[in-house]
Structures are given as structure tokens and as C-alpha cells.
């Protein structure tokens, strides 16, 4: 079975430095022939590899930036972190106006649906009192992490459509009500990360997403920034009727954004994939008692720290807090946040927010047949005792243990271990040339050229 992935390695750019292999939290990357390759069934599209790649060889499969222009009713589904990217002198209204001038017919922040999402989760919690803790479906990298690494917790994920899907449903309903035919409507998500691309292109818990395309947030940032510079300071931007989000909605994608709105007696908001894994390990052992709700995010600081958030995560986060404070001030003065406009569709959205249950698809299984799996495991254990256990990575796998598993599952040769090769060479069982060609098979043959003179 093939899994869709939004992250891809461009072979021509990859320098085989193995930084990605060492940082990957699910050990999904191996080096071969001097290039990194992603093992599909293990990748969760978290993007840690993208962040560390020094050669920009890892890219996100987004759609062509200009496709939205093909649709008379193109809708930009904007994450509020996009607005957090811009310095203070570029106001929210200016960004909205620029998006219209760039050709979007409609602009809508996906967090407009944050409060409806919250209510859909509360409804699910009421209807499923036997499932605790409930885990938020918000972060698609976390949903995939649980599927592959914590299969016993898959049933704890609330199968509820996230604000992105709910806001897309709302936009579609509203435009349809106004008499716009579906083929004229183009729903485009401006994505801050790779996992959201995968979530749109290959959703978990439903057949197909209604979203028509995904635009890289960095590309749009460049587009908007350039537009503002191009039109100059004296440019009169058209007045915009923009969605004034509530403070709660603006903050919802940051760490604690969901937890602060939930009424659970005990809940945790955890960000950073390693922190999440540490916690899930404990949770899976039943070592954490009485937890009712978990907000888990792959990125430090939530979406402000997303892959395609081009500014520093703390600067971006603070801008969002500043915007939320202004919104809260307006709310105190009696102004109704515009996200309430969605309220007329609330029942429809909540009724259609349910997804199919999240299915586990464990990456850990050595063999479907337990006897064969046991046999493999015993071989892995034996092999491990012979390996150096220093996780040097010269074999092309991130750890000795991962390498032992690869060898037993016929995905690697034992001769790829440099220590084992030296051992064989010392015993006269392998020639220097054979050893060298083994090394080249993993790292390529151009690592060292010519004489070294220091």
C-alpha cells in the first residue's frame, strides 16, 4: 500500500550529508548511493528533515502558485499564522487587500471555524464518555505519528474535521447559496507545513478533501510582500470587509490554543515531536492517569513554528498575541467577532464534521506472522550484540538497531557496517577494494578526491 507524502528529496540537490537521517523522529531516512531516501511507510511529514537540510534538497509538493487564477471564485483559505509573518507596519487589512489585488476573489481565515471545531469536539466528547483521553485531530503530523508508532492510541484521536475543512465547507456552502456553480469555485489552502499538504491530498478518515489546491505559504508571503513594495507607499488599497476573528480563534493554532478553550478537568498541551513522543510513551503504558484531553502539536510553539513560517516562531507568536489582544479589546467593547457569521451554518458544519475512525498502520511490525517476527527479532538481538552500538551512521542507517533491523529484513547488507568490514579485512576475508566499494555503495564514490595536503 502506498502512502502519499508531501515531502520529497530532490536527488540532484541531495549531497548525502545524512543530517536528515539523524534527525528524523521516526527513523524514516536511509542513505544509499550517496543520496538520502525516505521510507514511505515511516514518514509522517513532520518536516524536521526539511529544516536541517543544508542543500535545500527537500521540498514540499505544493501546487503551482498561480493555479487559483483559473477560478473566477478563488478562495484563499488562510491560516492566521500567515498574518503573523508580517512586520507591524504591514497591517492585517493591507495583507487582505493585497490578496484581493493579487487575484483572489475571496479571502477567509481558516480559524474562523475554530470555535465550531471546538463545539464539534465537545459534542464528540459528550457522545463518547468511554474514550479518554481524547486526542485532538488538529495536527496531521501527530495523527500520522499515532497511526504508525502508537497504534493502540489511534482510537483516542477524535475523528473530527479540523478548522481548515470546516471553513472550506462553509465557503463552499456560502458561495453555492449565492448561486455560484462548483466548477467556478476554487478552494485553496495556504499551507504553513508539509503535513497539512498530505492531509489535504490524502486525508485520514475520508475519501477525498473538497480543497482544490495547496499553496506554499512562503510563496504567497513573497507574493504579497513584493506586491506591497511594488505598489509603493502612496498606493490606495481598496477597503476590505475582512473577517475580524475572535481572540480565541486567532490563538487557536498556537500551543495551548485548544487546551485553553477546553473544559476538561485535566488536559495537556504538548508541542515538539520529541516531547509528544515522550508523553505518548508514558500514556501508552497507562502511567498517566485521569487525562481527559490532549492537544499535541508536532512543531514547537504550534503553527507559529511551522516549517513554512518564515519568521522566528516567537516573533510570529507575539504578533498573533498582539492581534488577539486587540480583538479581545473590541469584544469587551461589545463588537461581535466576525467569525460568528459562520454561526448560521453551525449545525450543518457540526453535523458533517465527523470523519471515519482513525486506523492504525503500524510501522513497527517485523512480520505479519508472529512466529516469523519472533525469529527476526531474535536475529536482530543477536546481531545487535556484534555491532559497535555507537550509532555512527556510516552504514547509511540512523542507529545500530535500525541497521540490524534493516539487515534482518533484507534491506541492508551487514558489510555496510564499517567496523564489521575492518574485522573482515583484518581476517583476510575481504579485500581493501571490496571494502571500499561497499563504502561507495552507501556514500557514493566522490567523497574524497585526490591527495590531501595539509
Amino acid at each position, binding site marked *: 500500500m502506498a502512502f502519499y507524502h508531501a515531502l520529497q528529496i530532490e536527488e540532484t540537490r541531495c549531497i548525502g550529508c545524512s543530517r536528515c537521517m539523524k534527525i528524523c523522529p521516526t527513523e524514516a531516512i536511509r542513505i544509499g548511493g550517496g543520496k538520502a531516501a525516505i521510507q514511505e511507510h515511516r514518514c509522517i511529514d513532520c518536516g524536521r528533515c526539511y529544516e536541517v537540510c543544508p542543500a535545500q534538497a527537500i521540498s514540499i509538493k505544493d501546487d503551482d502558485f498561480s493555479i487559483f487564477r483559473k477560478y473566477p471564485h478563488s478562495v484563499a483559505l488562510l491560516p492566521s499564522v500567515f498574518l503573523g509573518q508580517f512586520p507591524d507596519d504591514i497591517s492585517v487589512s493591507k495583507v487582505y487587500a493585497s490578496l484581493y489585488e493579487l487575484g483572489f476573489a475571496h479571502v477567509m481565515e481558516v480559524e474562523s471555524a475554530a470555535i465550531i471545531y471546538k463545539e464539534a469536539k465537545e459534542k464528540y466528547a459528550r457522545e463518547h464518555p468511554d474514550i479518554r483521553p481524547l486526542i485532538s485531530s488538529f495536527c496531521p503530523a501527530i495523527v500520522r505519528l499515532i497511526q504508525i508508532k502508537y*497504534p*493502540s492510541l*489511534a482510537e483516542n484521536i477524535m475523528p473530527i474535521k479540523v478548522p481548515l475543512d470546516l471553513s472550506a465547507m462553509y465557503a463552499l456552502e456560502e458561495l453555492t447559496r449565492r448561486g455560484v456553480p462548483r466548477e467556478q469555485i476554487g478552494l485553496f489552502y495556504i499551507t504553513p507545513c508539509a503535513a497539512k499538504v498530505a492531509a489535504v491530498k490524502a486525508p485520514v478518515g475520508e475519501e477525498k478533501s473538497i480543497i482544490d489546491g495547496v499553496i506554499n505559504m512562503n510563496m504567497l508571503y513573497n507574493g504579497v510582500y513584493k506586491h506591497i513594495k511594488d505598489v509603493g507607499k502612496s498606493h490606495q488599497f481598496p477597503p476590505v470587509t475582512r473577517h475580524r476573528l475572535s481572540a480565541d480563534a486567532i490563538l487557536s493554532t498556537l500551543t495551548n490554543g485548544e487546551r485553553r478553550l477546553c473544559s476538561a478537568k485535566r488536559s495537556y498541551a504538548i508541542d515538539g515531536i520529541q516531547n509528544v513522543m515522550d508523553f505518548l*510513551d*508514558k500514556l*501508552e*503504558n*497507562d*502511567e498517566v492517569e485521569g487525562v481527559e484531553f490532549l492537544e499535541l502539536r508536532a512543531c514547537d510553539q504550534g503553527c507559529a513554528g511551522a516549517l513554512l513560517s518564515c519568521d522566528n516562531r516567537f516573533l510570529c507568536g507575539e504578533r498573533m498575541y498582539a492581534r488577539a489582544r486587540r480583538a479581545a479589546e473590541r469584544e469587551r467593547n461589545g463588537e461581535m467577532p466576525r467569525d460568528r457569521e459562520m454561526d448560521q451554518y453551525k449545525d450543518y458544519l457540526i453535523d458533517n464534521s465527523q470523519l471515519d475512525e482513525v486506523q*492504525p498502520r*503500524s510501522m*513497527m*511490525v*517485523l*512480520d*505479519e506472522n*508472529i*512466529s516469523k*517476527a*519472533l525469529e527476526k*527479532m*531474535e536475529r536482530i*538481538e543477536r546481531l545487535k550484540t556484534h555491532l559497535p552500538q555507537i550509532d555512527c551512521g556510516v552504514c547509511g542507517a540512523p542507529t545500530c538497531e535500525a541497521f540490524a533491523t534493516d539487515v534482518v529484513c533484507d534491506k541492508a547488507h551487514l558489510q555496510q557496517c564499517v567496523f564489521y568490514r575492518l574485522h573482515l579485512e583484518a581476517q583476510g576475508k575481504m579485500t581493501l577494494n571490496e571494502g571500499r566499494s561497499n563504502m561507495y555503495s552507501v556514500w557514493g564514490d566522490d567523497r574524497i578526491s585526490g591527495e590531501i595536503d595539509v
Partner: protein
Amino acid sequence: MHQEYTVVEGDFVNAGKASSSVKKTLKQLNVNPQVVKRVVVALYEAEVNAIAHAYGGKVLVDIDADKIKMVVADKGPGIPDIALAMQEGYSTARPEVRDMGFGAGMGLPNMQKNVDKLNVTSEVGVGTTVEMEVNFN
């Protein structure tokens, strides 16, 4: 396949090391996640018991295609009345152990609930051996 772990008296920091390791093994063997959960919960309780009540011990794990056998054998004060110890809420844990969140008297009952076979043998002043079995199917 056979695995062994050592449990050290009073070392609550490392409580759960054996059960975590066993969990990883069972996941790799494609054992049903709900069964894995039962094994892990039971073994964790037994580990904590050996840490809290005894002077350390050993965890012996044997896995074959149908089931897992776990033996937690400690050297310690032993249990004078096993039937009493099996009752929910009965605990002899010291106050400082309870302060750490352990010793609620749910250990043995929780093991009983999660395993298919449980056998506790004990000799006062010598130690306690908890044998547990969980079938995979």
C-alpha cells in the same frame, strides 16, 4: 524469546523500563494493541511493587507465538496474606511511597484484571514471585 531485566529497590525513577521495552517488542511482533496494553499495565504494576516493597529483583520475560510469560521475582519481606493483598485498596505501602503517587492498593488487583493467568507465591522474610501470562489470541 527470552528477556531479563533487573529491578532496584527504591528506584522509582526507572519504574517502567522493563514494561516499556516489552511493549516495543510486542509492537514489533504485531500483537494486538489492546493485548499489548494489558501486558504493559500488568508488568508495570509488578515492577512498581518490586521497587516499592522489596529489596530489588528480576523480571524474566518469555515470548512465543501464542503468549507472553512474565515472572517478577523479588527478594523482600514477602506477603503474609496473599488473599488480603489481592483486595482492591489494601496496601502496606510506606507513607513516603504513597506520597510519590504509588501504593494505592491497586497493584495486584490491576494485574489480575489484565492477565489471563496470575500466580503469586510468597514466603515471609524471603520474597515474592509473581507469575503472569497473557495469551495473544
